[in-house]
């Protein structure tokens, strides 16, 4: 269970992007967060995945307050989150082949020996053929790369998935396939999901509950600095 309480965050203390936002993801629940572009959804998603330290507010993971972000967060807390970003090109190290990309979290956490089996299993799950696994990011399409990024997010079996506009760069069939992969994973593990996006129809069909940015952010008009 993930609880965000009165989170204020941004890149400059004087003009926070996210002001006083509260949001809860119950265990196993899929929450869709809708909002216009530039409102701060992605920043909130990064805060939720412990990738950006908020200026104020509390984040509770399974009831325990989180005090450290990024590298300072204990490894088992950090890896409880699987993150998928909007742009696969920017979220894949251009030097790593797709199989290394997927195996990287296992290697980083000292579970190198599990890598070959787990990569093969996940590649089949997300629909990547073995010849694609030997290629580098510039040799595959956006959709294929996003499949690899989703596989990387699932490789450590996270308890919570944070998908920040995961499907907005993809065509409809790839988007549907990736959503299906996420749903299969959630059914088998009971993981929670925070899906951020601006596609109302998709999020409504995908998630148990959708919330609109205006309903969780403190009233005060749109942020002047987007």
């Amino acid at each position, binding site marked *: 269970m993930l609880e965000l309480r009165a989170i204020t965050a941004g890149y400059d203390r004087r003009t926070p992007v996210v002001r006083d936002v509260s949001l809860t993801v119950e265990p196993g629940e899929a929450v869709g967060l809708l909002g216009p572009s530039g409102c701060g959804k992605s920043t909130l998603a*990064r805060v939720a*995945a*412990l*990738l950006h330290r908020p200026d104020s507010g509390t984040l509770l993971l399974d009831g325990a307050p989180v005090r450290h972000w*990024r*590298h300072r967060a204990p*490894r088992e807390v*950090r*890896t409880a*989150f*699987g*993150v998928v*970003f909007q*742009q696969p090109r*920017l*979220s*894949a*190290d*251009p*030097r790593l082949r797709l199989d290394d990309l997927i195996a*990287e*979290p296992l290697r*980083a*956490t000292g579970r190198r020996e599990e890598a070959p089996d787990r990569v093969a299993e996940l590649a089949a799950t997300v629909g990547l053929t073995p010849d694609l696994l030997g290629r580098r990011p510039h040799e595959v399409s956006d959709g294929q790369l996003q499949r690899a*990024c989703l596989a*990387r*997010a699932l*490789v*450590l079996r996270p308890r919570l998935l944070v998908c920040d506009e995961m499907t907005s760069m993809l065509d409809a069939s790839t988007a549907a396939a990736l959503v299906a992969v996420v749903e299969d994973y959630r059914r088998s593990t009971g993981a929670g999901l925070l899906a951020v996006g601006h596609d109302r129809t998709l999020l409504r069909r995908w998630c148990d509950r959708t919330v609109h940015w205006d309903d969780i952010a403190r009233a005060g008009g749109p942020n002047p600095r987007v």
Partner: protein
Amino acid sequence: MAEAAIERTWRSHGTRRRSTRTLRVRTSGALVALTVLAVLLVPPIVQLDQQAVDLAAKLQPPSWEHPFGTDDVGRDLLLRCVYGLRVSLLVGVAAALTATIVGTAVGALAGALGGWADRAVMRLVDTFSSVPHLLLGIFVVAMFRPGVWPVVVSVALTHWLSTARIVRAEVLSLRARPYIDAAVSGGASRWRVTVRHLLPAVAPQAALAAVLMVPHAMWHESALSFLGLGLPAHTASLGTLIQSARGSLLAGQWWPTLFPGLFIIIPTLALAGLAGAWRERINPRRRSELML
């Protein structure tokens, strides 16, 4: 008709530019290859003593026997120049490598840690660069006995700053990429993020900075030796050659200064030309400013 003419001008312009560029690259490449071959092959093949003194043949102008003439104690200048280039090139490469390693380490440290560590390190870099670096270099060599390694240390210690800046800036911009976020979320330690994701990404920039620094370091070696602080006077380096030839220049003997001077200018320009072409390939937006 008009379109064809436009296309023709455009194409001829394009080919002309490309041909000058390949000409530059080829000339530079040939000169660098020639330099490297000369310093590697000439000493073992000719087996002549570059220190052999022949007072009867002192200060002879260029001739078939001594193509570059002789110096004030009758040593053959062509041989001295090749040996001098050897020393200068060794100092240049060693200093550039050391400076790049130090600079990359410092820059990556500052960029990867960020926050107050970054600020502290960069203020240190600013402090170092506020002192004229030749002065600092002179200060460093003056602490040691003349020799090759003090010169390498002096040049390296004064030249890691620009590499540190380049690497830090590059690391800072990379650090904000989502793939670093993904690595953090995947449990990677700071060290692993730096070594696995950040350093390989800045390696081409750092290697380019190293190559661009070789000619600069050679100039510094020559400058220090010319000032009499670098290499001992009997070691032939391009700087010591010019330094010892200063007196004879005033007496009208031009060859002992001209040829070592050319040996400094030509290989360094050729190296800089090659490095510049490489930079255009990896980063076409920044065409100007050679680091000489």
